């Protein structure tokens, strides 16, 4: 995967999948649409990090517990998705847990 930064082209640091919230679900799940693919592959995002990029929960991060073609469920231990709204944007990134500094 490549990434562009003006005319600089470097390796992408992470696999990423930006998406949009299309409907609310339970306190730990919502319906979503990936912006670079027609649908998610079931459980392809399991263990990935989801960070909210637009909306009331801007900057909040969660771990994806599971996903279907159109629904994402996050792990309860990161707190609820309270405040998430239809139209919010997020990014899901494949990343291993980082050790505390």
């Amino acid at each position, binding site marked *: 995967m*490549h*990434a*562009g*930064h*003006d*005319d*600089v*082209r*470097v*390796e*992408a*640091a*992470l696999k*990423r999948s*930006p998406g949009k919230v299309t409907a609310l679900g339970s306190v730990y799940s919502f319906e979503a649409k990936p912006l670079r693919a027609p649908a998610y592959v079931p459980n392809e995002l399991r*263990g990935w*990090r989801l*960070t909210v*990029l*637009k909306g009331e929960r*801007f*900057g*909040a*991060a969660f*771990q994806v517990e599971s996903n279907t073609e159109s629904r994402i469920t996050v*792990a309860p*231990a*990161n707190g609820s998705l309270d405040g998430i709204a239809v139209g919010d*944007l997020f*990014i899901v*990134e494949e*990343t291993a*847990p*980082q*050790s*505390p*500094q």
Partner: protein
Amino acid sequence: MTRFAGWLLALCASAALAQAARTPAETVDAFHTALRNKDTAAALSLLDRSLVVYEFGAVDPTAESYAFRHLPFDMDVAVATAWKLESRRTGGEGNERWVLSTYRVTGRQLDGTPIDQTTLETVILRRTGGLFRIVHFHWSTSDAAFQARAQSQRRQEEKP
């Protein structure tokens, strides 16, 4: 330690990174560290919601716009290159401060082309709730050819 417990610790570390950034210069350095660590949440935690970014001739008028359009690419560049701080001046007073920095940025592009340029950075910060957060970035480069190519490319992107 389970993978999940490790992830939870990582979240706590992200929050700690934001909380630990006290001075304006430390906040700027923490932002670059977060990018290099591929820690999106930590980077966002250092941004004020009123952020405006000027980057090589492009404008991100909101924090959301920057987070969605350019932060991932800035993270890629941060990971692929080395940024050496060459000069820094700080100023301002009270809750409004500025940090001016120059960096020598080196590395290689995918095709092997070397990256070796000076990046100029202006950062304005505002203190709210006892913490400095970034309200403005302006990045440019001393490489005139690079700047011209970037601005030309931006103009092409902006054509209807």
